[in-house]
């Protein structure tokens, strides 16, 4: 599992996955702009390295939980992009039959247990999956992605305490993108590094550059091994930035253009392409092919979604209770 010994060519799938997520979300953004799809959309463009670096180390039977900005997490865990796109488009063929939508992705076949529209809402749920994993004793772990905004929620603190107290195999992955919705983190808390909270609860933690996929992967490798071996929870804080607004349509006036430009320089995909090229794992031609393959797959997914039927109205009363 250690990433240092890996051959550079073995890392190419990470780039493919990051491109798949980027192409997927750019397509979602375009379809939204064209009013082909509706709904409240939160894109994680610029944060792909966290999802991919984390999920690249997980087993199919590990449990992953997300938040409202989780298209990338689901894809990284192996969700089918056709069914995902159809869900975002509100179609009957979507993962949730059009009842969940962008914020409530569930792809159980891929081990993506659930996202949530509520900041911090899945943190206690991940605790429960970790509790079940511990009972089943098959070495599974639970991973939960959340943003810096969740760090001020009660659910976050209650969960860190219980995870630590009961030594549950859960990995808290904080995507610290600097903004809780429309507000810089500094306006919500005096604690600059959310990993500090993990220290308070005696949970081993690391803060890494979330725009460097191998750095995320390295930290996650240690965290996952720790949890799998039954040594309890771990916390990885990934410093990153979303290159879009909080939601699609957000003019993002709270953010200086210079800050955005700075982060664009640190684009995780461009950075990783440069690194793989430097390490002779890919050529320019390979890189072009990886991008165009991703865009082709996404086009097919979009076509599938838009060609799919709307859910029938009489479906609405089904699936209220099992």
């Amino acid at each position, binding site marked *: 599992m250690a990433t240092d010994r890996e051959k550079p060519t073995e890392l190419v799938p990470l780039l493919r996955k990051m491109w798949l997520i980027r192409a997927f979300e750019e397509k979602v953004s375009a379809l939204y702009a064209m009013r082909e799809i509706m709904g409240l959309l939160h894109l994680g463009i610029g944060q792909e390295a966290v999802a991919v670096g984390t999920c690249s180390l997980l087993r199919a039977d590990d*449990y992953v*939980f997300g938040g409202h900005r989780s298209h990338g997490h689901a894809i990284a865990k192996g969700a089918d992009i056709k069914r995902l796109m159809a869900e975002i488009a509100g179609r009957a063929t*979507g*993962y*949730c*039959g*059009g*009842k*969940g939508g962008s914020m*409530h992705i*569930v792809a*159980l076949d891929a081990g993506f*247990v*659930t996202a*949530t529209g*509520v900041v911090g*809402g*899945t*943190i*206690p*749920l*991940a*605790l*429960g*999956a*970790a*509790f*079940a*994993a511990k*009972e*089943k004793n098959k070495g599974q772990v*639970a991973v939960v992605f959340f943003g810096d905004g969740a760090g001020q929620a*009660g*659910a976050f603190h*209650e*969960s860190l*305490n*219980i995870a630590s*107290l*009961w030594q549950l195999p859960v990995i808290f992955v904080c995507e610290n993108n600097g903004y809780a919705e429309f507000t810089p983190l500094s306006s919500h808390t005096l604690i600059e590094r959310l990993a500090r909270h993990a220290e308070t609860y005696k949970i081993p933690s690391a803060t890494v550059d979330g725009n460097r996929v191998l750095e995320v992967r390295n930290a996650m490798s240690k965290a996952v091994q720790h949890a799998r071996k039954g040594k309890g929870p771990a916390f990885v804080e990934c410093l990153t930035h979303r290159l879009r607004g909080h939601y699609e349509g957000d003019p993002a006036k709270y953010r200086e253009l210079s800050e955005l430009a700075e982060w664009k320089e640190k684009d995780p995909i461009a950075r990783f392409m440069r690194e793989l090229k430097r390490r002779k794992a890919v050529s320019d031609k390979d890189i072009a092919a990886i991008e165009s393959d991703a865009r082709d797959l996404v086009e097919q997914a979009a076509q599938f979604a838009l060609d799919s039927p709307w859910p029938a109205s009489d479906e609405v009363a*089904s*699936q*209220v*209770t*099992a």
Partner: protein
Amino acid sequence: MREIAYYEAKFEALNEIMAADPTVHLINGTFLSLSPHRHVYQALAKKYSDRIMSPPISELGFCGLATGAAMAGLRPIVDISTGSFIFEGWPQVANEAANAFSMSGGQTRVPVVFHLFHGLRGGGAAQHSASPQAMLWNNPGLEIVLPSSPRDVKGLLKSATASDNPTIFVDHVQLLDLKGDVPENDTPIPLGVADVKRKGSDVTVIATSYMVQRCLEVAEKLVNDRINVEVVDPRTLVPFDMATLMTSVEKTGRVVIVDETHQSCGVAAEIAARIVETGFDKLKAPIRRVATLDVPVPYSPPLEDYIGPRKDRIMEAILAVLR
């Protein structure tokens, strides 16, 4: 027939459930509130110490933990204990557990039980006497169970645990010492089956939880006045057995609903609306509700007594629909 106390029947159920299914964990509490019978829990705690968890006072955390564990294949039973405390875990119960099955398009099942004690308990005041079942009934995706007898608590707890849905098990401390018949090896009572607790022909009294027992006492008193009361106990709000209720309503044409949630948008209000929509033409008199007055529950004994569905108010309502 064997007669045992309500709390004993409840513990038989927990014991049998734990023995039959290793995926059941008990999370928090004693399932007996502050009852003097708490010692019976110790025997259970000893027997299944590896499956009985005692979390910190973090309802949000442990209601979510139980929900997530249910999503991952376990069948936890959470003791919220005092019903008012469910508000501390509300986001996980109402917004995560309740929505998961629908929101996932049927992918996710959440077989968790949230157990709580509701209602007027004697000095609980406004923050320890809530009856949150009406609010929860307004939140699709949850099953809601309200036992009222020793036999029901045992049979319904088994079905609630076996259910693949998040289920609110609404208990009442005033029932714990009630004695009643519970056959050995009794079969579980399915959710969604109302029970006619007393047969009668003049008036249908629909009552829930502890109010069933109170209404049975009132019914006995009215025998002297040659009034023959039928007492129907829905036993579960979700699923709801309308057919049994309507059979009784069609027979008597007169309905009183007695329930301990607050009156406005309460359990009685919803049941009344359903009866009116289904069988207005069967009614010979307006439906009367006897619910808890729309005030925060006061502490002082005479005040607490005054706001609840007292026997004299139940009696008065029955006489009113018979006029």
